[in-house]
């Protein structure tokens, strides 16, 4: 099962406060452990929302608004993509993440083709697989 681990924004990440050298080193070590265990597929940090934008859709029209956004606790400041056997295993890994106070993460399962049932016709499925293979080659 594939999981996305969403790292929640807080006052510091939204203000662009960078992590300490100690935290960076600890996080690098944690990432390395997950890579060695074959669990980690990707991970990135995101710039604060004051550099971001949002697009809303209504009646065929889209409206753009610029950051920062609120409430802070619902925003994202980074993520990992991991592959584990169960949600419990994903939680087990994340309990070991070297976060200090004030951090929160959310763990969510990633959709696989079989989750879509009949809505994903064989044609669409083949197209999706081709697209992913091509995007991965980039």
């Amino acid at each position, binding site marked *: 099962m594939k999981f*996305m681990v969403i790292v929640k924004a807080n006052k510091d990440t939204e203000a662009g406060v960078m992590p300490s050298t100690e935290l960076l080193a600890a996080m690098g070590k944690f990432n*390395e452990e997950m890579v060695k265990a074959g669990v980690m597929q990707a991970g*990135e940090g995101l710039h604060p929302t004051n550099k971001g934008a949002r*697009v809303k*859709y209504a009646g065929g029209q889209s409206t753009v608004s610029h950051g920062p956004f609120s409430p802070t606790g*619902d925003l*994202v400041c980074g993520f990992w993509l991991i592959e584990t056997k169960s949600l419990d295993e994903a939680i087990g890994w994340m309990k070991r993440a070297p976060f200090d106070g004030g951090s929160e993460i959310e*763990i*969510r399962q990633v959709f696989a083709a079989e989750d879509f049932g009949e809505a994903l016709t064989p044609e669409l499925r083949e197209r999706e697989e081709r697209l992913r293979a091509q995007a991965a080659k980039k």
Partner: protein
Amino acid sequence: MRFMMLMIPQGYESAPAKLDLDPERVAAMMRYNQALKDAGVLITLEGLHPPATGARVRFDSGLPVVTDGPFTEAKEVIGGFWMIDVASRAEAIAWAKKCPASANEMIEIRQVQEMGDFSEEVQQAAATFEHPQGGWGKALR
């Protein structure tokens, strides 16, 4: 520049664990994904199961505390994301505007951090961990 386009569907925070999808909407989204790919900007994309099946881990007490979904206090949750590589923020916004999204959906566009964005000290601290694209994590693609 790499950007993440985060899909935020209104009401997804309380969506049931099992989803019913409209095949027509799935097909329209596939055409959009194909357009991103054809333009050479798509890196990856994923959809996320509703938060009802998810978990949260908090670290504010110094020890990890786990809560199972759904998360009653959440006003917004992520339903999925695209990772794209474009020349500017304006180009990322232009792509998001083309998305066949419905009125209850919203896309948030956020730039991905690259090592070059940070001071030399920060870069050195993270140097033990090699990333093919210069970011924080290691993509195993």
